[in-house]
């Protein structure tokens, strides 16, 4: 019953809730912002390269460096962790949204025009729905990034499962490291599987044959 002991002493139920709380906020915000930027750069192709380059640059920073860079501005804890996750996860979502909107078959755009849809109506009724499978792919990548960064937040007192891992590492408590590490891994796999199911549903619903 060692697992139960470790679970209780490390407050893993609470840590899991903290973890999922930060995770949901970060991923939700990244999705909204990412899709938003994706649509904006699609509508203004002139700025597309610049914006995607900036996001790419953020992406090339090592995650731990990004976290540390935010400390002077946001202090310790959940806030910089969430912000870092968002910054990190915007790129895959934005990039897939942009590519998805752009690569909708010209023929559908043409027919939408010819039956009398305005460009906004085409965006809303044709481009966005048809880009959903790709956007979901970006979302899935973002999910994995977010999971990693939230766990890293344990380093800067953000709470969540990373805290339990940190404790285990400092005390060199193998049981804690194993239980917290495995649980974090299992959680990530489950969440990714859920995202995978959503992605394939969207693929079936909106994909092209």
């Amino acid at each position: 019953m060692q697992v139960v002991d470790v679970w209780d002493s490390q407050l893993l139920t609470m840590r899991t809730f903290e973890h999922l709380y930060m995770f949901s906020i970060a991923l939700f915000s990244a999705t909204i912002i990412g899709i938003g930027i994706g649509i904006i750069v699609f509508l203004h192709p002139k700025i597309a390269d610049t914006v995607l380059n900036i996001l790419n640059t953020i992406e090339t920073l090592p995650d731990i460096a990004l976290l540390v860079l935010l400390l002077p501005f946001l202090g310790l804890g959940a806030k910089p962790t969430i912000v870092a996750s968002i910054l990190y996860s915007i790129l895959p979502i934005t990039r897939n949204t942009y590519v998805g909107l752009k690569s909708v078959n010209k023929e559908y755009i043409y027919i939408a025009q010819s039956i009398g849809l305005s460009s906004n109506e085409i965006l809303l009724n044709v481009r966005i729905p048809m880009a959903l499978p790709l956007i979901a792919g970006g979302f899935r990548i973002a999910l994995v990034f977010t999971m990693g960064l939230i766990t890293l937040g344990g380093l800067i007192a953000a709470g969540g499962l990373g805290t339990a891992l940190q404790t285990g590492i400092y005390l060199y408590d193998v049981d804690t490291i194993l239980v917290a590490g495995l649980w974090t891994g299992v959680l990530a796999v489950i969440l990714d599987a859920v995202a995978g199911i959503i992605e394939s549903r969207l693929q079936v619903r909106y994909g092209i044959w």
Partner: protein
Amino acid sequence: MPTQRLFDRINSVHLQQVTKQYGEHVAVKQLDLEIQGGELLILIGPSGSGKTTTLRMINRLIEPDEGVITINDHNIMDFDPVRLRRNIGYVIQDIGLFPHMTIRENIGLVPRLEGWSGQEISDRVRHLLDFVSLSPESFMDRYPRQLSGGQQQRIGLARALAMDPPLLLMDEPFGALDPILRKQLQDEFNIIKQEIGRTILFVTHDIDEAFKLGDRIGIMSDARLIQIGTPEELILHPENELVSDIVDAKKKFKHMDTLRVKDMMSPITDTYLFDAGMTAQDAVKRMTQTNVELAIVLDNSVPVGYVEMAHLVQQIYYDVTLRDIVEPIPIFSSNDHIASALEKLKDRGGSLGLVMEAERPSGLFFLNDVLLRLI
């Protein structure tokens, strides 16, 4: 926000000295064309002759470089393009149904954007599906990929009619279908054309289709309109060699006595042969997959008649095999004379015959088709 109707009926569509150029390439040159209210005008010509460009200039998908296009004497450049297009139905060869929308959503897309209620949209979609001979119950909630090519083409027409437009543009709507299905849809379209009673501009490269459907035919070549007139005028008084080539004017001299059934039949492949023991449901499935809407039924390799998709779909909920519902079909040998075949068809009141060659079904013989080619 509902779009105001720009015109309730078409008196005339007028193109005056219209030119469209892409760089060096002239797509349409100084074109004068009048489409009269209520007529079906066909534009025909080799590819690259400018017929599709002409069609697309009328709903402003392409804007002319020179010249004026008016509908009921209003310059179309004064209309908002989106509003103009919602007043003009448009059907294209590749159908272009949106794969992520159900049939109801596809047909009801523009009505929804126009702010119709869900009930109004459903009623309209039902009405239109009935109109194109598809049962609303079995089709409303399906996706385009679950439909055969012919069914999708009918949905394309239904979508074009959704806003009840007084003017319809059709760009080779039957071009992608196999010859037999194309003939079936042309026959259907000929019937509903009377009912819809609208002005239609129809582009094709198939002269038989032009003769079958058109009130008047305009022949285009090299970005110009060469001649326009009724089928009779074109056949009897072709303006030049090109026109007589296209309308094949010499065929009026063809002598019926020399023609045999095989010269006039539409060949069929094994795709069209169904076993009598097959259930109606399986037959519909196979027709959808292979994109045919008519099949010859064989009982122990002996043809016993034919079935049509439109009848089969009404039977799929009953436990019937093709043997129970097959319609008899007259059988001809490929060497029969046309005259005797026509007489036999006339006696039986049918419009379709099966042609056998060496004990195997080799083609179908359509009454309309033969009459048309013998003009």
